[in-house]
């Protein structure tokens, strides 16, 4: 069954993530991996929203940032315990997404993109201008480090394990949703809203559900980000980051959760590899993006599947030939 296959994948992914630090020569790679996981959390949410439900959002960087800033403010300025602040941060991002989603999701296509983009821009202006609360454009300094049940995680390896576990939990939730009546309802309203309605799907409610769920994922990523880096600045939560998440999802193949994770990892690691090219990096980055979309229209996951099938067909043929 499809669910079981996805669970096998998740188990394998989890094992690889947990073993990865052993293969890492130093902390730099862990930092890159942590960023990959945080981006992947955002991408998985958007995969449900864009790939499955067919809705678009150019505002998720706003929720990511709002959660980060809320948790930073509560833990640093107010002095609440980190765990509590993180919960409040996740709550703030999620609740705001309800308020944004309610009016926006009545719009369609490009208009929905514009509305969410607008909210994202407004949030990012708030991060920049409410200097007394957010520290303004130069950033929020001195956020306490990540702690779990009052136990502060000081080294990168333990932070990495928490973040990786968080990603796996999010992926698990995403798979659960996709292999349930909710997942089918989302895919249904993607192809035909009226047929979905006729099948008893409350379209407005499910759109809001998936919008809020994806914002919840982004919020979780946001609070982890704030307390991992202990510093946040508005530039990280701008419109370009929202676009970047969408690119990760599309590059991963839109409907595939593993695909969007691969997309997120790919786009996060790529610039690190391209560092050597200095100024040409941006050109290579653009070119790789364009070429990927031209030659892998169904994304990295789709391209992988095709390669896999071709290999399987080839090996089947080979074994057939052997038998003859």
């Amino acid at each position, binding site marked *: 069954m499809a669910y079981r296959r996805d669970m096998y994948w998740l188990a394998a992914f989890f094992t690889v993530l947990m073993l990865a630090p052993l293969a890492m020569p130093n902390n730099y790679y862990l930092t890159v991996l942590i960023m990959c996981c945080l981006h992947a959390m955002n991408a998985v949410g958007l995969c449900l929203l864009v790939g499955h439900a067919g809705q678009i959002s150019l505002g998720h960087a706003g929720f990511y940032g709002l959660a980060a800033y809320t948790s930073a403010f509560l833990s640093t300025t107010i002095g609440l315990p980190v765990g509590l602040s993180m919960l409040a941060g996740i709550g703030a991002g999620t609740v705001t997404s309800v308020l944004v989603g309610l009016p926006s999701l009545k719009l369609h296509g490009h208009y929905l993109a514009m509305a969410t983009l607008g909210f994202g821009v407004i949030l990012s202006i708030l991060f920049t201008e409410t200097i007394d609360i957010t520290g303004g454009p130069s950033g929020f300094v001195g956020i306490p480090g990540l702690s779990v049940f009052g136990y502060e995680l000081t080294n990168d390896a333990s932070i990495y394990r928490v973040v990786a576990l968080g990603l796996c939990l999010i992926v698990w*939730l995403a798979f*659960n*949703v996709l*292999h*349930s*009546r*909710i997942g*089918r*309802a989302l*895919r*249904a309203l*993607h*192809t*035909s809203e*009226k*047929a*979905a*309605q*006729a*099948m*008893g*799907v*409350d*379209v407005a409610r499910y759109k809001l*559900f998936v919008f809020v769920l994806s914002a919840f994922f982004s919020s979780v990523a946001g609070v982890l980000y704030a307390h991992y880096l202990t510093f946040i600045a508005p530039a990280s939560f701008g419109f370009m980051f929202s676009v970047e998440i969408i690119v990760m999802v599309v590059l991963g193949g839109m*409907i595939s959760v593993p695909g969007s994770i691969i997309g997120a990892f790919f786009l996060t690691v790529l610039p690190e590899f391209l560092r050597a090219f200095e100024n040409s990096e941006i050109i290579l980055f653009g070119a790789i993006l364009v070429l990927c979309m031209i030659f892998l229209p169904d994304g990295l996951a789709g391209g992988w599947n095709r390669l896999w099938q071709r290999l399987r067909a080839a090996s089947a043929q080979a074994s057939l030939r052997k038998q003859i």
Partner: protein
Amino acid sequence: MKHTVLECRKLSVRFGGVQALHEVDFQADQGHITAIIGPNGAGKTTLLNVISGMVSPVSGEILFDTHTITHCPVHQRNSLGMVRTFQNLEIFSNMTVLENVMTGCHGHMPLAAWHSLLRTPKAIALEHRIKEQALEALEFVGLTGLNTVSAKELAFGQQRSLELARALAARPRLLLLDEPAAGLNIAETQALAEMIVRIRDTYQVSIILVEHDMELVMGISDAIMVLCFGQVISRGTPGQIQKDPQVIAAYLGSDEDE
């Protein structure tokens, strides 16, 4: 004993300046196949849309059993037991055949979202029941064995059957069929006629049928209503309708090729 499932009272619909329906009274009886016919542009599909909730009437009232559902949203009508199919196929092309039919169970098998999110035992049990029902519906329409095929890869006739299976999985008490024979050949239409009758007999479903194919309509309907320019011009049994001079005039007077 006759029992009315659905009753429409003085329904009027206007699109801009066009009066699509004018004070239409309509009723469908329990366990009957009730057909709505009429020349092109008579307002048949509009009536079906009003009944299923996709178009709001300007005035009038719709009763489903004892509930007034005039302003009830589409998805709630589904939960009450009313399911429809579409003239231009609206299958979920991004899903497999089985998933399409499983989606049909959405309305009558509700579950709080957190069960699905955490995949609780309750959610797993429900998934099993949904799958059973879906498989049963697929078997009923003769699509067994195509479960994992992507819905968009089916032949046109099979897609029609898939829509029917999806509607059946919803366990409707009232099934609205919008031109189910459109695009089918003669053999397929015959099979469809048999299936519609079989659906009614097996599940005791009431069926409202909008259809152009007169042979199909006359062959299986228990009652027929004729619309012309948004108004009811006749109603009765197939025999009565075939003899009604007004109906003949309406059809002959209009361009009837489609």
